[in-house]
């Protein structure tokens, strides 16, 4: 399951979704809104997505992970809109029979998502704002 939502991400629903009797290992990765970036205080974040393409890329990444590892269930959920410090921006959940696959697949998914999925994050500071990584 891949999704993009403006609502708070529900970890219990994600757990229910990936839970399966065949799994001995479930990994969750939460990307959360940190209160600073390189020690500069962050007030909040804004996320924007090219929904159609982002969902397609998320699905491609999930499918690739399923080719590489024994993934039985997964959830890739990204939030967009205004996020406050501490909010969950993304949750990757992966269920596998054994734990090495759960760690490897989860890490692959978030690393690849950050490289390929058309979602953009703006950091709002007290005295300005910046689209993350936009400039060299």
């Amino acid at each position, binding site marked *: 399951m891949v999704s993009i939502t403006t609502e708070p991400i529900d970890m219990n629903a994600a757990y229910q979704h990936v839970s399966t009797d065949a799994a001995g290992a479930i990994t969750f990765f939460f*990307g959360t809104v940190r209160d600073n970036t390189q020690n500069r205080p962050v007030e909040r974040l804004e996320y924007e997505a090219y929904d159609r393409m982002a969902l397609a890329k998320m699905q491609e990444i999930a499918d690739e992970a399923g080719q590489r590892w024994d993934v039985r269930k997964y959830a890739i959920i990204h939030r967009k809109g205004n996020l406050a410090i501490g909010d969950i921006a993304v949750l990757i959940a992966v269920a596998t029979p054994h734990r090495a696959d759960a760690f490897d697949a989860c890490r692959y998914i978030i690393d690849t998502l950050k490289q390929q999925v058309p979602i953009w994050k703006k950091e709002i500071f007290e005295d300005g704002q910046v689209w993350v990584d936009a400039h060299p």
Partner: protein
Amino acid sequence: MSNRVSVQLFGITREIVGTSALTLDLPKTGQVGELLSNLKEQYPALTGLRSLLVAVNGEYAELNQPLHPNDEIALIPPVSGG
């Protein structure tokens, strides 16, 4: 038959161009690269980005990819999800 295409804009490209979608004439070559060059000429701030890709119908496109009037085109500045 229309020779115009619509280009969707997100994040910093939306802010640079000042709108979330542009309607443009297809470039003479009909290719992604020329469309991108034209946009960079018209909006020079686009050249200051760390990268600027073009997606056509939801897939990252090569510069020599031909465009068609009904294509869904989007500028993709450096992504920063997660």
